[in-house]
């Protein structure tokens, strides 16, 4: 990553942290002291830089195949991006799989551009010293549904399988903590320490979540996708690294996005 970008990221994060601590002091309110900092960030969203980089990468001839992603079909036809993310995950006949945004990008980067699948997966999450093309591309493609409503349908039997498996997985107790997703996301007004937890069994709260992923995460200084959000929950639950684009991750996303249908998409969102 260029040093200037790094500096910008750090500066933005420091400013946000500073603003947040001042606001928390003024309000004397223990819950969610970072809300004001997030609001400030959202008004001048650093995630827009990821959208711009994603747009450039999307149209650039890249990879061993020297091809752009303009022929990638996200479900509405090759290169048709407006509103495509709002219908994902969905069933794709060419791969015979239900795919979310990131797994579809992965398919196109491999099939059209000739990138190695394992390499794309290895680089899918950015680190402090390496940018992720996936995070930029997902930001861009998702942003082309901004202002539209999430509208996942379950018309195909495979989509229904993914949804129902996702519902099961959302409630499945496992691992050293005995948690399921619903353990922390099944009631109103809950927190882990001071971090507010959305109740994902409530349609309005679910829509608020779904409206804003991919999201710029202040604690990480980068845009993260839903694949990373699920991976991070798994980490906290003491489970192994969740496979990128695994069916489990896509099933959960199908369940979450369908539950969040009607959410007005505005991405990248801004999150802690």
């Amino acid at each position, binding site marked *: 990553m260029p040093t200037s970008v790094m500096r910008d990221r750090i500066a933005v994060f420091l400013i946000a942290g500073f603003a947040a601590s001042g606001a928390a002091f003024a309000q004397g309110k223990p819950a969610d002291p970072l809300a004001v900092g997030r609001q400030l960030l959202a008004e001048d969203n650093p995630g827009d830089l990821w959208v711009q980089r994603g747009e450039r990468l999307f149209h650039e001839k890249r990879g061993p195949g020297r091809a752009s992603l303009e022929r990638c079909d996200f479900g509405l036809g090759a290169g048709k991006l407006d509103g495509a993310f709002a219908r994902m995950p969905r069933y794709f006949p060419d791969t015979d799989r239900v795919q979310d945004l990131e797994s579809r990008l992965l398919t196109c980067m491999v099939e059209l551009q000739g990138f190695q699948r394992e390499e794309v997966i290895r680089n899918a999450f950015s680190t402090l010293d390496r940018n992720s093309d996936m995070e930029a591309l997902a930001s861009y493609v998702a942003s082309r549904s901004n202002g539209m409503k999430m509208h996942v349908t379950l018309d195909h039997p495979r989509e229904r399988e993914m949804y129902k498996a996702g519902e099961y997985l959302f409630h499945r107790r496992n691992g050293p903590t005995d948690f399921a997703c619903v353990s922390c996301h099944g009631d109103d007004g809950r927190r882990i320490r001071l971090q507010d937890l959305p109740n994902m069994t409530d349609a309005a709260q679910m829509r608020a979540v779904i409206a804003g992923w991919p999201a710029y995460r202040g604690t990480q200084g980068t845009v993260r996708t839903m694949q990373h959000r699920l991976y991070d929950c798994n980490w906290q639950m003491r489970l192994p*690294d969740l*496979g990128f684009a695994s069916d489990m991750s896509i099933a959960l996303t199908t369940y979450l996005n369908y539950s969040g249908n009607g959410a007005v998409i505005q991405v990248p969102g801004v999150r802690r």
Partner: protein
Amino acid sequence: MTAAALAVPGCATYPDGETARQLGEKMVSEAYPGMPEALVKRAVQDRPQALCTKIGKASLTREEAAEVVALSRASLRYPASGKLVGDWQAGARLAYSGTGSRIRGGRVEKAKENGALCSNCHMLDPGEINAGNLGPSLAAYGTQRGGSEELAKYAYERIYNAWAFVPCSTMPRLGAGHHLTPEQIADVVAYLIDPQSPVNRRR
């Protein structure tokens, strides 16, 4: 044969609960490619976890609840010393530690010991606001209940395996799941009931 072939596609109720469970379990078995077998095993459900997996508003049957409690009671183990009340200061450190046992890149994090995770979900020392609320407040736990031997045993067993008391409680089975040792749990018990502990100090 795929699950899709077993049922009539297009049916509004497809797939049923059992098919969804089978599909989900297959996905779990494939969700952790390249991970060491010992870590992948963490995601395999034991019998109580399977019984405690309920979709939506479904609840345990009386028989299932009895089985979870019986299995959980049978899991209880105690420190070799027999001492159920340890060192409250060691317990304080554990209670506020949320680290240990997490996995990144297929490796378990390096930590001297696992934290007890308590403050992620419970208020303990009322002077510390950085506490979660997924579980009830435990402030003044000892002063409200007295510091009897019976209380110590109850608190110990409740931490070792909460499901012996509340089947399928949100609380992790910290001892039975080998996240904490019996000695660590005794330290946490001391932190909850010792009159000198900040949990119980009057202010």
